[in-house]
């Protein structure tokens, strides 16, 4: 059913991206068909207003910091990003001194273990959801990670 018809959520997302990026037109073609969204004038958008009036908060709370190591803000939105499903400590090798599960440049298959995350004294395997090449590793062994934090880019 959802394959036969346009996906309203997709259209909404594209419209949102249009607003966010200030583009006037986006065209996307994929298996499900082609979607084109356009807006004649870049919107004087509520998002812009929000961004401006949200300004006090950065001024107020200079101390905001995640405990995580620096990842690019864009990494989480990268299509190849492997996001942490939990809060915990990252381990790139099965045990101290051992070879890491994967390294940059490695080819991985879907289901292959990429790293471990320890939470509540349990080690949880983080597996590749699709085949690809490890482009970047964004955390180090022993690093604290939060939910949704990008761990690797696999493309």
């Amino acid at each position, binding site marked *: 059913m959802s394959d036969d018809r346009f996906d309203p959520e997709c259209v909404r997302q594209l419209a949102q991206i249009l607003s966010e990026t200030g583009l006037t037109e986006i065209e996307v073609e994929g298996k499900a068909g082609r979607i084109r969204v356009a807006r004649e004038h870049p919107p004087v958008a509520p998002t812009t207003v929000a961004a401006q009036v949200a300004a006090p908060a950065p001024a107020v709370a200079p101390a905001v910091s995640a*405990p995580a190591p620096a990842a690019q803000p864009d990494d989480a939105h990268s299509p190849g990003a492997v996001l942490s499903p939990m809060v915990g400590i990252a381990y790139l090798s099965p045990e101290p001194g051992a070879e890491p599960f994967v390294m940059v440049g490695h080819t991985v298959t879907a289901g292959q273990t990429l790293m471990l995350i320890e939470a509540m004294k349990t080690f949880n395997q983080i597996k590749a959801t699709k085949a690809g090449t490890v482009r970047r590793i964004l955390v180090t062994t022993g690093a604290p990670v939060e939910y949704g934090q990008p761990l690797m880019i696999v493309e």
Partner: protein
Amino acid sequence: MFNKILIANRGEIALRIQRACREMGIPTVAVHSTADAEAMHVRFADESVCIGPPPARDSYLNIPAILAAATITGADAIHPGYGFLSENASFAEMVEAHGLTFIGPSPAHMRMMGDKIAAKQSMGALGVPLVPGSDGEVATLDEARKIADEVGYPVLIKATAGGGGRGMKVANDPSELEEAWHVARTEAKSAFGNDAVYLEKYLDKPRHVELQVLADAHGNVVHLGERDCSMQRRHQKVLEEAGSPAITPEVRDQLGATATAALAKIGYRNAGTLEFLYQDGKFAFIEMNTRLQVEHPITEAICGLDLVREQIRIAAGHALGYTQSDIKFRGHAIECRINAEDPETFLPTPGTVEAFHAPGGLGVRVDSALYAGCKVPPYYDSLVAKLVVYAPTRLEAIARLRRSLEEFAVVGISTTVPLHQRIVAEPDFIAGDYTIHWLEKFVNRTR
């Protein structure tokens, strides 16, 4: 004292706890769902950890994630706020099992008070007043008559297995007792397969009056006076006062003495609230909340203590440092709970706050995590701000409340500010003359 406190909550109460910690020089860790990444409690924290996706069960109720967040940030204590995990005894136990301090009562006391029937029995045995009635099941109509005469009409015949209003009948006078007895038993039998009933005095126009207590780990217990939370809709408190318009200092002292003696006896620790129904000069214990309450600021206003600071000090093992005779009550305080709800239909109104301007000036306190541009997500409680006013007298507090509500500006989402404006203009409210049923009727009448 603690080195770092993780606050396992969100919204205004997370901010409230952060403020106390900051004033005490203790760094804080905020936890948040992905929906709250831009929230005030995250922006103000010294550190923050995203613990899960928007649904509370996956984030703010996600015990492993919260404990892992405490571990990776090196926090040594957890403040649960109210709601979420604040009354979860297992969570408190796990916090302690991880070598961290739970800022609250012992898990045993949380469990005791979590079982509402056991709580009543325990407190009743310690001399705390309960609703008068039979001790357990009433076997015969004659026995029911005898007890009803003792406690006085109206009385309520209730199924021991009951709930949800079924198997429950009121007898307003002796002539109605027999029918109520039979109907209640029949309903109980058909609804629960058990026709056992008990009898208690029916409170038809009670006030909700609760007593704030503080107890340290050294056996010191004080009460901080009562709050009147009779202004309720669907069992949700809407506006609270300290003190109660219906309570005299003598009555307060007497209830306080009974309650603090009972809590000292069981060795209760940290903050807690005993909730009562109050009618015809008598209290009837309903339940005890083993946590900080939403409406704690009105108590802070009249007794001059910072309750969150006291909670943290107690959890760190400090003695209260004052006795009951040091606690003085001054003036009158009122809190309005401002919810992101339509003020007529009470439907939630999540969305983006375009502009926010809080009232200011003498005797006005606002606790809110709103800011211009913030989002009110649809996943959590609709409480978005607490307006607390304080003045030397109740009437001055009402006048101050009225002008503060006029100044309150939230643009972009509807809030219950207009509801509060209507309430504070009502003669019954101004006279302090309202029971727990008043608001429901008022809302239905004026809708």
